[in-house]
């Protein structure tokens, strides 16, 4: 794998997390905790931070495959890698379906679903073919623009803010599902896959993208809760689109719905492209293939076909990737550290 710059890589993960927030992440928070959606998102960030901190300390500079081999053995590593590949494939399918649904519902309303899927699949194939270097550079440019556009949408919907919408402060008063709370940050798991090829940025590589995206996630959730009263806020599948359509500040700043399309295009292409890239990389490393690019046409085709057949039936992918990122991975990392410590103890004896 080629060496990539830490600053640019951070934006790739910010884009991956933001791609969720431009789709349904905020409505998941609202459905879980009502008016306390912002507290839910803040808790999500804190738990994700704690779990990633533990994972990071256990991983140190070891590669993903080394950790898997050490914990599960040679054959176990293959199974672990294959499971991770399947999860990534499912994650790509889920993401491509969601973006195609969103664009089909609001922008290309007369276009067939398959047509929009093809555009995404072709784009994902080409981006993944160009490799991680191209991906992080595109993210570096589009990431800043996406954050700026989200900022414009929030600023323009300021007139709709009604502070009473955030009451009752504790909302439904429950945290229904921890993985639902964390799933927005789950794509950060891929950071551990490319960690060793990142140059610079210090040890805690996850901190920067996690904090940056958590700020945006919390702000969007807060604005949505303030602008749209509960339980109306539960009714909209794409909160950011609702915020944009509410914008009516001046003659110049109104009808910002079009901006959401730009955000969807940027985050959709980058996220689907990078997920397909990660799928091919994981497959290559797990089965010790020489060429990553050879698997790409098959993976892109698989993603397209599964998305076309399954449609919107892949909601389970969110929970699975979240459980893997914040359940299986930290557990594996802790076992890895424990085993290493035992080895060291035996040596010193």
């Amino acid at each position: 794998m080629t060496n990539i710059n830490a600053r640019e890589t951070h934006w790739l993960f910010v884009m991956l997390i933001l791609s969720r927030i431009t789709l349904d992440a905020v409505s998941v928070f609202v459905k879980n905790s009502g008016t306390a959606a912002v507290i839910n998102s803040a808790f999500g960030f804190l738990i994700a931070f704690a779990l990633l901190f533990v994972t990071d300390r256990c991983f140190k500079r070891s590669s993903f495959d080394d950790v898997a081999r050490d914990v599960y053995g040679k054959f176990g590593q293959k199974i672990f890698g294959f499971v991770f590949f399947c999860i990534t494939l499912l994650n790509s399918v889920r993401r491509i379906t969601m973006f195609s649904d969103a664009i089909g519902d609001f922008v290309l309303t007369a276009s067939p679903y398959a047509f929009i899927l093809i555009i995404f699949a072709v784009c994902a194939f080409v981006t993944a073919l160009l490799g991680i270097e191209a991906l992080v550079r595109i993210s570096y440019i589009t990431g800043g623009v996406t954050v700026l556009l989200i900022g414009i949408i929030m600023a323009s919907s300021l007139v709709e803010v009604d502070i009473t919408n955030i009451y009752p402060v504790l909302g439904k008063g429950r945290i229904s599902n921890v993985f639902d709370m964390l799933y927005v940050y789950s794509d950060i798991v891929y950071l551990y896959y490319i960690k060793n090829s990142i140059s610079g940025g210090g040890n805690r590589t996850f901190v920067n993208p996690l904090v940056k995206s958590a700020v945006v996630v919390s702000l969007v959730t807060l604005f949505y809760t303030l602008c749209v009263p509960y339980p109306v806020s539960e009714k909209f599948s794409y909160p950011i689109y609702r915020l944009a359509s509410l914008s009516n500040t001046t003659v110049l700043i109104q009808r910002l719905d079009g901006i959401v399309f730009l955000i969807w295009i940027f985050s959709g292409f980058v996220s689907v492209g990078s997920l397909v890239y990660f799928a091919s990389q994981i497959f290559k490393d797990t089965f010790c293939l020489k060429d990553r690019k050879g698997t790409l046409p098959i993976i892109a085709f698989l993603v397209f076909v599964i998305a076309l057949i399954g449609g919107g039936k892949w909601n389970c992918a969110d929970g699975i990737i979240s459980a893997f990122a914040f359940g299986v991975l930290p557990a594996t990392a802790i076992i890895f550290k424990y085993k290493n410590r035992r080895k060291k103890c035996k040596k010193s004896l």
Partner: protein
Amino acid sequence: MQKISLILIVCVICTLFSGCYDNEEIDTLATVMAVGIEKQDKQKLYTFYISDAGSFSSESTGDGAKAKCFVQKADDVETATQQLNKKISKKLDFSHLSSIIFSEEISKAGMNSDIVFFEKYASVRPQTLLAISSVSPTQYLEKLNPSLEVNPEKYFQKVFTDTEKYVTNLRLCDFTNAYYTNTTCLAPVISADIGRDKIEETDSNISQSAVIWKGKNVATLDNNWFLGLMLSDKSVDYNGAEIERTKKPKFDFKLSKSNLKVSINLKVKTDDGFDKKSAEKDAENFLTESARNMLDAVNVRKAVKRLFLLQKKYEEYNFDELIKNAKFNVKFSVVSERS
């Protein structure tokens, strides 16, 4: 070299996609500026007020009709749109829809079934204004000819919002919010002299407000001076005296499971002839009377949310009963006289 050729291939593919399925020229669209909905027999009569783009051009004299009305009878607005699209050469486009006007009959039966369609329709803005017409919306729209406006869309936007005095206005998103949060909202009631050949700016009037609760028009308010004072910064007329508030009203809620007391403090500037005591009494009577008609004029349901920590606790209260039997106490503090 390989990367450059790949980028070139992508560029070529992109140009192929630009033909796109959704390609629509502006002259193939019929821009709907207002929709009128009224009952006829067992179905509904939908009137689409469509802009005549040609009349906006510099060659136009300005006297001719700036819009054309197309009427379609159907069960719902979706069917009406589809049927009309088949009849006319252009496709109905709602991206410039400014107002939706319901007849009184429809508003009393319930407006939500039509509103749901407009809310789902991506090109319809949540800021689209809603109104109730005391006359037939079809006749009102067919005869409407505002001579001062070149673009009738502007007329609809300004008539509800840019007046010097308080006029109730209701947006599509406000209706949806009120419907799902079980709160009341007010809609303007249009009246016009439909006996004339043309309805000009001065021939239509918005003086009443309709109380909308659970998507239905439950009462009509003739004199809404107190609502105007609470909800807007504009001056209102009370028995010949002009009143204007200087600060937002202060509310104090005393809430138990069986009682609700609402105190309202308003700082106002007025003319000489303002009778404070009778105004306070009138305001209290108005609030008590309208509360009985299910008008939550001070938006109790929303305001008391501050008193709760959990949604579950808030939902335990029967606000319908509490508001019906609420006690109101209004205090005016005259801070200065109007110059």
